[in-house]
C-alpha cells in the first residue's frame, strides 16, 4: 500500500513536470531607455523552444537617430544584426531553449546620447483566466469578443508607434527652440564685443604711433 502511494506521488510529479515543459514562456516587455555614447546595453531572456518571439526597436532622440542592434541565440549564433538602423522589427521561432540576448550599441557615436524604445515579445499573449480553458467550441459571442480584443490590441500598437514618431518630432523642435535661444544671445554678445573691441584696437594703434613720432 505504501509503495503504491509512493508511486502515485511520483506519477503526479512526473505529470506536473511534463506539463511545465510543454508550457511556453510568455510575456511582453516594452522599455524606453537612454543609451549613452560609446555604450552597449544588452537584454537577456530565457525562451523555450518553438516559441514565436518578436523584438522591435525605435530610436526616439539622439544624433542621426540610428543604433546598432544584434540578436544572439544561446549557441552564440547571430540571428539578426542591424547596423545604424532607425527602427526595425524581427520575428523568429526559438530553435532551442536557452537565453537569447538582444544588444543595442552606440559605440560608433562620440557624443550623442540615444533614447531607444524596445519591445520584446515572447510567445502569445497570456489568455484571460478561465476564457481559453474549455475545450468546447466557442460561441459566436466569444469569438467576436476575441476579434474585438485583437483589433483593440492593434489600435494600441498603432498608437504606440504614433507616439514614438511624434515624440521624435517634438523633441527635435524643443531642441531647436533651445538652440535658437542660446545662439541668438551668444551672437548678440559677440557683435557687441567685436564692435567695442575694434574701436579700442584702432584707438590703440593711433595712440602708439603718436608717442613714437614724438620721441
Amino acid at each position, binding site marked *: 500500500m505504501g509503495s503504491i502511494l509512493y508511486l502515485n506521488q511520483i506519477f503526479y510529479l512526473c505529470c506536473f513536470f511534463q506539463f511545465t515543459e510543454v508550457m511556453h514562456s510568455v510575456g511582453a516587455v516594452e522599455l524606453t531607455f537612454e543609451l549613452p555614447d560609446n555604450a552597449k546595453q544588452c537584454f537577456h531572456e*530565457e525562451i523555450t523552444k518553438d516559441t514565436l518571439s518578436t523584438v522591435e526597436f525605435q530610436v526616439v532622440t539622439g544624433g542621426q537617430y540610428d543604433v546598432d542592434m544584434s540578436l544572439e541565440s544561446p549557441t552564440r549564433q547571430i540571428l539578426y544584426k542591424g547596423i545604424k538602423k532607425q527602427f526595425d522589427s524581427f520575428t523568429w521561432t526559438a530553435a532551442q531553449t536557452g537565453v537569447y540576448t538582444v544588444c543595442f550599441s552606440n559605440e560608433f557615436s562620440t557624443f550623442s546620447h540615444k533614447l531607444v524604445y524596445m519591445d520584446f515579445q515572447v510567445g502569445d499573449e497570456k489568455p484571460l483566466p478561465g476564457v481559453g480553458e474549455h475545450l468546447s467550441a466557442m460561441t459566436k*459571442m466569444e469569438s467576436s469578443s476575441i476579434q474585438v480584443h485583437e483589433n483593440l490590441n492593434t489600435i*494600441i500598437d498603432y498608437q504606440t508607434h504614433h507616439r514614438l514618431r*511624434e515624440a521624435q518630432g*517634438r523633441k527635435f523642435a524643443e531642441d531647436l527652440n533651445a538652440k535658437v535661444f542660446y545662439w*541668438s544671445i551668444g551672437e548678440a554678445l559677440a557683435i557687441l564685443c567685436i564692435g567695442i573691441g575694434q574701436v579700442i584696437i584702432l584707438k590703440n594703434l593711433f595712440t602708439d604711433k603718436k608717442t613714437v613720432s614724438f620721441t
Partner: protein
Amino acid sequence: MKSNILPSLYTTIFLVSMSCLLYIVDGLYFHITETERKCFIEEIPDETMVVGNYKCQFYDPKTGGFMPSSPGIGMHVEVRDPDDKVMLSKVYSTEGHFTFTSHIPGEHVICLYSNTTKWFSGSQLRVHLDIQVGEHAVDYGNVAQKEKLTELQLRVRQLLDQAEQITKEQNYQRYREERFRGTSESTNQRVLWWSITQTFILLVMGFWQMKHLKSFFEAKKLV
C-alpha cells in the same frame, strides 16, 4: 492506514506547489554594476497605473554564476514625474514589485539602483525587470475572483479597460500635439525677434563706431 495516506498526500501537494513556484518565469533581465543607476522612461497619460516586477541577483565569484537569492542587498526604486518631482522613492528587498499611478501626463522616469555603500563599482548585479502599463497591469484573475464574473463578463471588462486606455492615450496625444505646436510657434517668434534685434544692434554698433572714431580723430587733429 488513514494516518499513512494523509501525510503523503500533503507532501505531494506541497511538492507540486513548490514546483509551481520554482517555475515562475523571470522574464527579461540585464546586468548592472553595484553603483550604477539604470533608468527607464515611460511616456504615459494621466491616471494610468504602472506596475513593475523586479528581481535582483548578486554575482557569486566562487561559482562564476549568479546566486539565486541574495539577502542583504536592497533595490532603491525612484520614480520621477514629468516635472522632475519625486513620486516614489523606496528601498525594496531584492525581489518585489512597485506600483504607481500617474497624475500628470508625460514622461515618467523609473530609476533602479542598489543601496550599496560602496563608492566605486563593485560586483555585477543581474536585474530581472517587467514593467506593465495601463490595461496590461490589471490582474484579471484577481478581478474575476473578487467580482465573481463569468468568462464573457471578464472579457467585456477587459475590452472596456482597453477602450478606456485608448481614449486616454488619444487625449494625451492631443495634449502633446498642442505642446509641439506651442514649441514651434515659440521658435518662430524667437527667430523673428532675433533677426530684428540683430539688425538693430548692427546699425547701432556701426553708428556708434563711426561717431566715436570721428570725435577721436578730430581730437587728435588728424581729420
